[in-house]
């Protein structure tokens, strides 16, 4: 038998054919690769969360290989000498082992922790982007709700992970969680005993949190992230208004290779930043805190940053306890159970409230500039102000200490600030939005300030304005506002010499024309003179 000639060049095509014969993938795959994505820096924020989550899965899997989620007492005998001979739970001892006796273990632990902090931060800024640009409107309400669920699951996932090492801080956090659960009316103590298996702390809670932390919640997160992304693909990404962009199209680049390679590279950069932070910046040094002991706590105990707003609300809420008929409703119920409940439900129904208020049943694929929706923007900033006051109050002891302020004064400042800050923030934001809107309209009507001051024959001075488009007989621009940035500086109109490219030395010859306009020289002769004169005609 003659040996068949092997043609290397035909191999990809042959392999492709074989695969397609079985999977019938050519058409759907092409459709996916041709999918168009719009581009804007603000669309990166969600990716920060997504990639941090991937890093969490990778590093977390590594950590499970060495962590022992047991509350059984043991005596530490590892290489960290200051704690040798101290009795502690196996969870804490194995966390110390990961930090000191596993090669690269501390690096992995710190990456896991930094990635968790960045994960929640990424979710929050991504939600703000979605909120302020109106991306949650029809048809994307469902994905907004999925995102909110992801946010709360992420917070609980972080909280449970934070509790696992059984160090002094995480044990204190567990005790606070126990107290919060106890405050729930009627069934509080039953829920607490169901969770802890006994009175606090028992020996069950860390193994149970471990199951939740590495199995149940990650599975939920993976599932919901998948739903989130599939919905994004189905509904196509919303885009900013701009040339050629309408409610009926997506303008951008096709997914493969451009968008996909940028996304992949962004994953690497996200990973790189987390790796560098984890190498250089210490996070959660449990060996300094020591093992959890019910009687030990230190000043300046703060939770991870994303729980600080709840800690702040617990600090600010006044001592208002309801006691009636032999029953008690502890005050912590309001800031730690009711408040998060409101913060979950309110944003979830917001898209529907807004649509109802505006009687808006249309489909929106174009994003809005925050200034164009002053009411929503002001509401959002109001929420941020509320949140920031709570976060700052979560560290009011640090503030009091660092700035030598009375601790009690910081608490009162937080209480008053929580009531006064948000309305003020609303009003200020509303005014700023209106101001920005007005400025856009003004530039559209009167043109861009050129910085050229003219003295008129009667002695008046006046600045020459460059109209952005055709003008009417009064010299007023006739362009409509299009929901997108209005150029407000002459260099935005290409009126200045383009910057020469190159870092240390120019790679291009500088342009010879004194004033470039995208390569087209602007006349400075009599014609240009006339244009300038027309522009300054009294209006």
């Amino acid at each position, binding site marked *: 038998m003659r040996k068949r000639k092997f043609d290397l060049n035909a191999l990809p095509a042959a392999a492709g054919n074989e695969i397609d014969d079985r999977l019938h993938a050519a058409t759907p795959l092409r*459709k996916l690769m*041709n*999918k*168009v994505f719009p581009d804007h820096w603000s669309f990166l924020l969600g990716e920060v969360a997504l990639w941090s989550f991937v890093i969490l899965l990778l590093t977390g899997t590594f950590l499970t290989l060495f962590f022992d989620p047991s509350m059984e*007492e043991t005596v530490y005998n590892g290489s960290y*000498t200051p704690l040798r001979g101290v009795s502690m739970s196996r969870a804490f001892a194995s966390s110390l082992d990961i930090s000191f006796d596993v090669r690269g273990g501390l*690096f992995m632990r*710190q990456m896991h922790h930094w990635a968790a902090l960045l994960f929640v931060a990424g979710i929050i800024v991504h939600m703000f982007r979605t909120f302020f640009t109106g991306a949650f409107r029809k048809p994307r309400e469902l994905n907004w709700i999925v995102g909110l669920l992801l946010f709360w699951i992420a917070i609980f996932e972080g909280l449970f992970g934070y509790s696992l090492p059984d160090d002094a801080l995480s044990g204190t956090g567990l*005790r*606070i969680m*126990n*107290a919060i659960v106890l*405050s*729930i009316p*009627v069934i*509080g*103590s039953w829920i*607490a*005993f*169901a*969770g802890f298996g*006994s*009175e*606090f*702390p028992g020996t069950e809670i860390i193994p149970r949190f471990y199951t939740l932390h590495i199995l149940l919640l990650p599975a939920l997160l993976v599932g919901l992230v998948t739903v989130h992304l599939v919905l994004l693909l189905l509904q*196509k990404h919303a885009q900013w208004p701009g040339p*050629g962009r*309408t409610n*009926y*199209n997506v*303008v*951008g680049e096709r997914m493969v*290779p451009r968008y996909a390679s*940028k996304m992949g*590279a962004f*994953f690497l*950069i996200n990973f*790189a*930043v987390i790796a560098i932070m*984890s*190498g250089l910046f210490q996070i959660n040094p449990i060996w300094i805190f020591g093992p959890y*002991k019910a*009687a*030990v706590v*230190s000043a300046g*105990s703060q939770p991870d940053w994303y729980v600080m707003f709840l800690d702040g609300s*617990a600090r600010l809420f006044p*001592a208002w*306890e309801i006691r009636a008929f032999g029953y*008690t409703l502890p*005050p*912590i119920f309001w800031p730690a159970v009711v408040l998060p409940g409101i913060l979950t439900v309110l944003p979830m129904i917001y898209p529907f409230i807004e649509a109802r208020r505006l009687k808006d049943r249309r*489909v929106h*694929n174009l994003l809005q500039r925050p200034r164009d929706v002053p009411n929503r923007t002001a509401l959002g900033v109001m929420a941020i102000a509320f949140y920031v006051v709570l976060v700052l109050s979560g560290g*009011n*002891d640090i503030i009091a200490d660092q700035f030598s302020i009375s601790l*009690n004064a910081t*608490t009162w400042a937080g209480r008053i600030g929580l009531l006064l800050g948000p309305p003020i923030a609303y009003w200020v934001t509303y005014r700023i939005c209106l101001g920005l809107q007005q400025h856009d309209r003004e530039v559209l009507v009167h043109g861009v300030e050129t910085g050229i001051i003219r003295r008129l024959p009667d002695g008046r001075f006046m600045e020459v304005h460059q109209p952005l488009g055709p003008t009417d007989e009064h010299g007023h621009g006739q362009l409509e506002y299009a929901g997108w940035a209005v150029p407000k500086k002459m260099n935005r109109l290409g009126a200045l010499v383009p910057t020469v490219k190159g870092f240390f030395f120019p*790679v*291009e010859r500088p342009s010879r024309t004194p004033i470039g306009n995208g390569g087209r020289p602007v006349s400075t002769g009599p014609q240009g003179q006339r244009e300038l004169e027309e522009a300054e005609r009294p209006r």
Partner: protein
Amino acid sequence: MSTIGSERSHTAGAGDTAHHSGGQPDIDVHDPSLSRFELVREGARRDGVEIVHYAPRFPIPGTKAERRIERTIALLFLLTGVAGLAFVVIFVAMRFAYTPGTNSAKLFTPLLGVTFGVALLTLGAGIIMWAKKLLPEEVAVEKRHLGGSPPDDKKIMGAQLGHIAEETAISRRPLLKGALLLGLAPVGVAAVVLPIAPLIKDPHGRGDPLLHTGFDPEYNNGNPVRLVREDGTGIRPDDVSAGGQMTVYPGIPHGATNFWADSPTLLIHLREADAAVARSNLARIPLNAPTPDNPDGGMWQNFIAYSKICTHLGCPASLYEQQTNRLLCPCHQSQFLITDNAKPIFGPATRRLPMLPITVDDDGFFVARSDYQVPIGPAFWERS
């Protein structure tokens, strides 16, 4: 890039693209005169995507500017290799075990982070530069379909769903409906109860743990429980100087461990003047008040003992301000006045720290007269 890159700019007006992709007939893709890019564009068109602008970044290949970018990207990739190699070498070869003091092992994690980070950063930056500076620029427009499915499909789907309901005829067969519900109900209950029931524990079951601490004589064969240090040794009045305080635990087996997390107690030796104030305030709280057979009340001479577990959320309220006689909980800054039955005077706590009634036994050690008379720590619903 070879074929696509050699294509010249394909620019069409962005405005008139919306109508194209739907109406235009498919072109014959087997036409040998078609270039590869024309096939790509046809594929995109069939997917509702119009490539309206496609132009190489460098119309003349091989210019100085293009080569410069190529060199930069190559340099980034080489840096990836260098940093990656450094990472591997450090990871494998460097000593990392903890040794006290300043030494090179402390650099292990920082070096891992920097080398790993630089490797990924340069790789990512190189890829992004490639995509943004070398790949031809492209503007593609994809059509969106607003609203739901085509009306025909909606109608068919409605009919289909209605037909399924009709096929099963659930509305016509009340017997089946009832039987199904009756059959499903226990299964549903089981599905809920099965995972939850084993978790349920009566919080007021054996020993009623929410109401009792390790100072309950019940855990000491009915004898009063001593106040002990963490190492289990008893405490004599002389061990705490005036104005001083000490964290004490119940003198029972494992009394100082987390098993008795409700029991840590703060034993305070008040100065004479403060003790007088505290004694005069005892009567305000009937539980702590002196009685004919116990003229000291909850205190013993100038000593007073309070639960260390904050009544707000259960942190140890352990910062003792000697000058103001306040106890401050560092978690949420509740403040308790120890000369007035540990009354909460600032912050979110609503309840006093419970007082542990103490005395000194025949051997001269502190003991608890009884357990705490009210539940310690954070409040809960059924706590009156």
